[in-house]
C-alpha cells in the first residue's frame, strides 16, 4: 500500500484475490468470523482456495458450500449445538474437499514457524495418526534417546488473512473489545491482512484506549468498515450471534436447491454490506445489539 490511508471498500480490499490463494479465517466458532469479507470473496469469484481457518463455523463452511475451496486445514470445524459444519462434513465424506488434518500444536507451530521465519517448529510427538495422513505438515524430527520425542511442522504462511474486529482508525490500527483468539497470530503469519471492523474511530480514540490495539497499522494492509460485518456470528461487546440465522443456514444446507436459494438471497444478490443488512431488517439487527447499560 502506498497510501497511509488504508480504509477501503469491500471490493477494493478483495479485488485482486487470485484463484488458488491460501486464505486464513479469523474468529472462533460463532464469534467474530469475518463474514462480510467471506461473502465478498464469494461474490468476487475467487476459487480453488486453500482454507486455513481458526476453529471456525460458518466462515469456512460457507466458502466450502459455495464451491470455492479445494482444501482446508482442519483442527476443529463445528456448529456447536447445531451439529457439525454441514458442507464441510459432506465435502469431506464425498472426497470433494481435501482435508489437511491437524492438531493444536501442528497449526500453532506452523504459524509460529512462518512468523518467526523458521524452517520448522518442533512440536511434541503425541503418538497420533496425523503424520500418517498428513506427512506434508508432520515430519519426523530425530531426537537423541532419552529426550522428548518431537515432530517438525513446516511454516504455514497464508497468502491472505481475513479478520473481523470491532474498531479501527483509518490508518489500520485495529482494536478488539474482546478476546482476539488466534487472529493476531494468523495475521502475523500471513502475507496480506484484511480486517473488517464494525466502526471506524478517530486516531485519538485509539490512543486513549491503546490497550485494545492488538494489530498495529503496519501489520494491516486494508481496513473495511462494515457494521454488523461478523453477522451471523457475534462481535465482542457489540452484538450477539444470530441463532435464528445459524439455524436457517443449517436447514438450508440440507438440500442443494435450498442452499442455492440461501446463497442467492444472502451472498449473491446483496451487492454490498448495506444491501445484506437490508435483507435481515432493522428489527432483527436491533434485537442482536448488546445493551451498553446491561449489568
Amino acid at each position: 500500500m502506498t497510501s497511509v490511508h488504508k480504509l477501503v471498500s469491500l471490493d477494493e480490499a478483495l479485488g485482486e484475490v487470485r484463484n488458488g490463494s491460501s486464505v486464513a479465517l479469523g474468529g472462533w466458532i460463532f464469534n467474530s468470523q469475518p463474514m462480510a469479507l467471506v461473502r465478498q470473496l464469494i461474490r468476487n469469484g475467487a476459487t480453488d482456495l486453500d482454507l486455513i481457518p481458526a476453529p471456525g463455523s460458518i466462515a469456512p463452511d460457507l466458502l466450502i458450500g459455495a464451491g470455492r475451496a479445494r482444501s482446508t486445514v482442519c483442527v476443529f470445524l463445528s456448529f456447536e449445538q447445531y451439529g457439525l459444519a454441514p458442507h464441510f462434513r459432506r465435502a469431506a465424506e464425498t472426497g470433494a474437499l481435501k482435508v489437511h488434518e491437524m492438531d493444536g500444536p501442528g497449526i500453532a507451530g506452523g504459524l509460529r514457524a512462518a512468523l518467526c521465519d523458521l524452517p520448522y517448529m518442533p512440536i511434541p510427538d503425541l503418538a497420533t495418526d496425523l503424520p500418517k495422513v498428513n506427512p506434508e505438515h508432520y515430519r519426523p524430527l530425530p531426537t537423541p534417546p532419552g529426550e522428548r520425542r518431537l515432530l517438525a511442522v513446516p511454516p504455514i504462511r497464508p497468502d491472505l488473512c481475513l479478520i473481523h474486529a470491532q474498531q479501527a482508525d483509518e490508518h489500520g490500527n485495529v482494536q478488539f473489545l474482546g478476546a482476539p483468539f488466534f487472529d493476531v497470530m494468523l495475521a502475523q503469519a500471513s502475507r496480506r491482512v484484511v480486517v473488517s471492523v464494525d466502526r471506524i474511530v478517530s486516531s485519538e480514540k485509539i490512543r486513549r484506549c491503546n490497550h485494545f490495539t492488538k494489530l498495529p497499522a503496519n501489520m494491516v494492509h486494508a481496513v473495511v468498515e462494515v457494521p454488523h460485518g461478523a453477522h451471523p456470528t457475534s462481535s465482542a461487546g457489540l452484538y450477539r450471534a444470530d441463532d435464528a440465522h445459524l439455524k436457517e443456514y443449517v436447514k438450508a444446507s440440507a438440500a442443494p436447491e435450498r442452499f442455492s436459494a440461501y446463497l442467492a438471497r444472502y451472498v449473491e444478490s446483496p451487492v454490498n454490506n448495506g444491501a445484506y443488512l437490508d435483507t435481515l431488517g432493522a428489527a432483527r439487527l436491533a434485537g442482536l445489539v448488546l445493551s451498553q447499560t446491561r449489568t
Partner: protein
Amino acid sequence: MGELLAVLLARDFANHEVAIIGTNSDIQLAACRLAQHRQAPRLTWYSGPGGMVNPRLDRLVSTADAENIESAEAWMDLPVMIDFIDWRIHFFDFTILSALQVDRHGNLNTVVVGEHAKPRVRGPGTVGIAALTGLSRRYYIVLTRHDRSALVPKVDFVSGPGFLEGGTSRENYGLPPGGPKLVVTPLGVFDFEPVSKAMRVKSLHPGVTLEQVRDATGFDLVVDGTPAITEMPSAEELRLLRTHVDSTATLRTKYA
C-alpha cells in the same frame, strides 16, 4: 442421564486442580461447575480453544458462547495459552473428553470413522485433544451412548492417545505419565486394569447387567469379581446441579 454422568465425574475432582475442557461440552462443564460448588471451590477450569478461565454462569451455554466468555475471570491471549496447552507437560491436572470412538486402551478418535481419505463419518477434527490426552496428568472419557460403534477394539484414527497398545506402550513411546482414568457411560463406570491398561468394569448403574454391558461393548472388558453398583446422585448433588449449574435443565432435556 446427563445429570448422572456429570455427577459421577464431579466426584473425582480435587480442590485446587486445574482442568481444561473443550467447546460443546455441556456434561464436562457441568461436572467442573458442580465440583466447584461442592468439594473443589478452587478448581480452575480453562475453556480450551477460547483461553477463558473460570466462566461462572448458573446455566450451561456453549463454552464458545459470547455470554460464557463475558463471565470469565480472565481470557488468555491464545498464542500465549497454547504454549501451556500444546507444549507444556502436566500444566493441566485433567481434561474430560468425548469421542466418536473409544478403544479398550482408552485411545480416542474424533476425526473419522472409516478411511481417512473417504470417511463413512466425518467428525469435527482432532479438536486439539492429542495435547490434552498426551500432556495432562490424567483424563476422563464421557460417552452419551454405550454401544459397539462407540466402544471399539481399535479406533480408526488415533487423535487422542491413551494407553496406546496397553501395558507399558505409552511410556515406551515417550509420552509423559498420564492416560485415561475413568470412562463414564449410560451403563456404568469403567477404569483401567493397572498392568494391561485394558478397560475394566468399575461399577454398573442400578438395573444394568454385566451381560448387557458385554453385548454393548466391542471388546472384552476386564471384570474383577462382582462389579459394584454405581452410587446414584444424592439429593444434595442434584439440588446444586439444578440450582447453581444447570438452572435451565439442559442436562435433563438434551441428554435425557
